[in-house]
């Protein structure tokens, strides 16, 4: 008892992050049980079939693109970036919440991250995979995309390291690599659990090979923990750098509406905002489908909604600043840009964006909303759409009317643009459902550290 009171005095009250009565076995059985079970729930099949169907749409769209070229898209002069870049930024931004949850919240000792970090990291990887498709196919000749990399070739040319597009190649490829490593390192002990639980020897061998012979030695754990913390420490600035560099693609250009110093923080906040919305979009159906509400509790939803509200308000501040500076700059082009955004031909997109990103999230001030899965899910959908619209507004409204009225032109997506975008959602869903089926979606070894029996009690 005495020990408890001392602890209570040292730490402010934190709501429990794990439902009552959990033991090592209940945690392991519940999470590994999802992978072990013979028949997946109906929700899994519905999700997987939809995802796989859309994945085929992606393959069809890319196949036609490779055959006929980017002419099938709606891109034109002056709107040369359009859907490909909108979708790239949207997907890569979604990925950022995964790294934030796994790295930054780990360094900040937020225990509640434990139940969501694994699938959030998986989400990061899959989102980066979807994002990576776009700049590559947008090059027009994707089969020579390797020209982006610095390699000693017979052409005797090198990438220009002063160009933001080259920075982007380095940032995204590093981000994909480090995210994959972080995810895999986190999986090693859990793969060992799956190896040891598998009844089929072939399954045991496959999981065993990926578990690298992990046996849970205290010496190994000691180095493992160090490596995990170091990776978290490295990922934290990395995640901030990646979206900053993505924003440089815009901010280093001279186009009105892009050439702004606010872009890096504004983009990073937007990325985390969109990412948390996507984590919730995935978590809410999953916790229902697999009945894991004692691991992902209403408290988790509440915390994630709070992060969403905070970053959403930062994004709103970004919108305000953009408008303010275009007025304050006394620059005719900047002033025209914001006026064109708000009242020009794409004004519907702008006001829909404000509705989704600035108005809808105000409901998150209420605890009842934050703890209600259904309402929260709806709000997350608003945010998902809103963040896509934000990139649309930034890319298209800035490009379609720049300095010279003679070069103004409208942009409309074609069926192929839309098909490719929807198709990447299919790729994302397919990968996500396969992940849920074959790998533990919650980190078992980290959940075990929250179980009472994991605590070493003082004997004296």
């Amino acid at each position: 008892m005495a020990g408890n009171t001392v602890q209570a005095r040292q730490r402010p009250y934190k709501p429990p992050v794990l439902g009552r009565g959990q033991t090592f076995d209940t945690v392991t059985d519940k999470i590994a049980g999802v992978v072990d079970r013979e028949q997946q729930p109906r929700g899994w099949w519905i999700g997987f079939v939809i995802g796989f169907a859309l994945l085929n749409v992606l393959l069809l769209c890319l196949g036609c693109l490779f055959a006929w070229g980017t002419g099938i898209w709606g891109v034109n002069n002056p709107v040369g970036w359009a859907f490909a870049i909108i979708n790239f930024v949207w997907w890569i931004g979604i990925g950022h919440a995964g790294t934030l949850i796994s790295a930054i919240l780990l360094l900040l000792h937020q225990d509640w991250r434990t139940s969501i970090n694994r699938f959030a990291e998986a989400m990061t990887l899959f989102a980066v995979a979807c994002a990576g498709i776009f700049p590559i196919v947008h090059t027009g000749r994707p089969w020579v995309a390797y020209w982006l990399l610095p390699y000693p070739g017979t052409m005797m040319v090198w990438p220009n390291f002063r160009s933001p597009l080259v920075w982007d190649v380095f940032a995204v490829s590093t981000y994909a690599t480090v995210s994959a490593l972080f995810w895999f390192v986190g999986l090693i002990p859990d793969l060992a659990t799956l190896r040891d639980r598998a009844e089929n020897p072939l399954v045991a061998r496959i999981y065993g090979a990926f578990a690298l012979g992990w046996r849970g030695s205290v010496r190994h754990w000691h180095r493992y923990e160090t490596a995990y913390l170091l990776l978290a420490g490295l990922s934290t600035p990395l995640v901030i750098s990646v979206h900053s560099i993505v924003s440089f693609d815009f901010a280093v250009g001279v186009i009105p509406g892009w050439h702004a110093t606010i872009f890096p923080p504004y983009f990073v906040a937007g990325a985390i905002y969109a990412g948390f919305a996507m984590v919730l979009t995935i978590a809410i159906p999953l916790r229902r489908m697999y009945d894991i509400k004692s691991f992902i509790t209403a408290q988790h939803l509440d915390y994630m909604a709070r992060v969403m509200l905070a970053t959403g308000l930062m994004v709103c501040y970004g919108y305000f600043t953009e408008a303010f500076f275009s007025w304050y700059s006394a620059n005719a082009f900047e002033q025209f840009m914001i006026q064109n955004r708000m009242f020009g031909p794409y004004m519907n997109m702008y006001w829909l964006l404000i509705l989704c990103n600035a108005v809808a999230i105000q409901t998150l001030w209420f605890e009842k909303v934050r703890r209600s899965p259904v309402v929260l899910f709806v709000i997350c959908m608003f945010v998902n759409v809103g963040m896509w619209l934000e990139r649309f507004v930034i890319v298209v409204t800035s490009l379609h009317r720049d300095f010279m009225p003679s070069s103004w032109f409208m942009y409309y997506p074609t069926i192929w643009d839309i098909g490719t975008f929807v198709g990447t959602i299919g790729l994302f869903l397919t990968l996500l459902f396969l992940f849920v089926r074959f790998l533990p979606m919650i980190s078992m070894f980290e959940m075990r550290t929250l179980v009472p029996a994991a605590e070493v009690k003082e004997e004296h």
Partner: protein
Amino acid sequence: MEAVVPVHGVMAEFDDATEFVAAIHAIKEAGYEGFDAYSPMPIEEAAEAMGLHGNRLPLMVLCGGITGFCVGYALAYWTGVVNYPLNVGGRPLHSWPAYIPVLFECTVLFASLTAVFGMLGLNGLPKLYHPVFNVERFALASQSRFFVCIEATDPKFDLEGTKRFLQGLTSSQVSEVES
């Protein structure tokens, strides 16, 4: 060669982290050195009890990061200034502030790779076979139970004596580990 059945060591099983850490302390006090402990999750107190303090990993990662920075700088400088100088609006060729994003990414990439492969290397992984896997109940070491194995290479090791010693520490099973 001896004719006896080769034994890797003797293994004892524990129910929870408290018993486990107490057992490590007891084994240390009894003077054993060649032993290893296995748990289903990281336990800081267990590492302390085994006398593990710092490790070489952070230094390796620092070196990895510095290497990444140097490699990135050398690449950007040599390609942009020496091998393929490109005049962009008369700006200086060696415009190092524009290299910063790439240098940062290279630093993080090399440091992260060092952290992961350094950890695996120092841990001697991948190693798909290890004698402890011969114990059937050891499958629970990755799920719910804690194990300690005193290895036969320890100078104080004596099959029967060590067995009795471990039986005094745990209420659960003690078993021989075939090598």
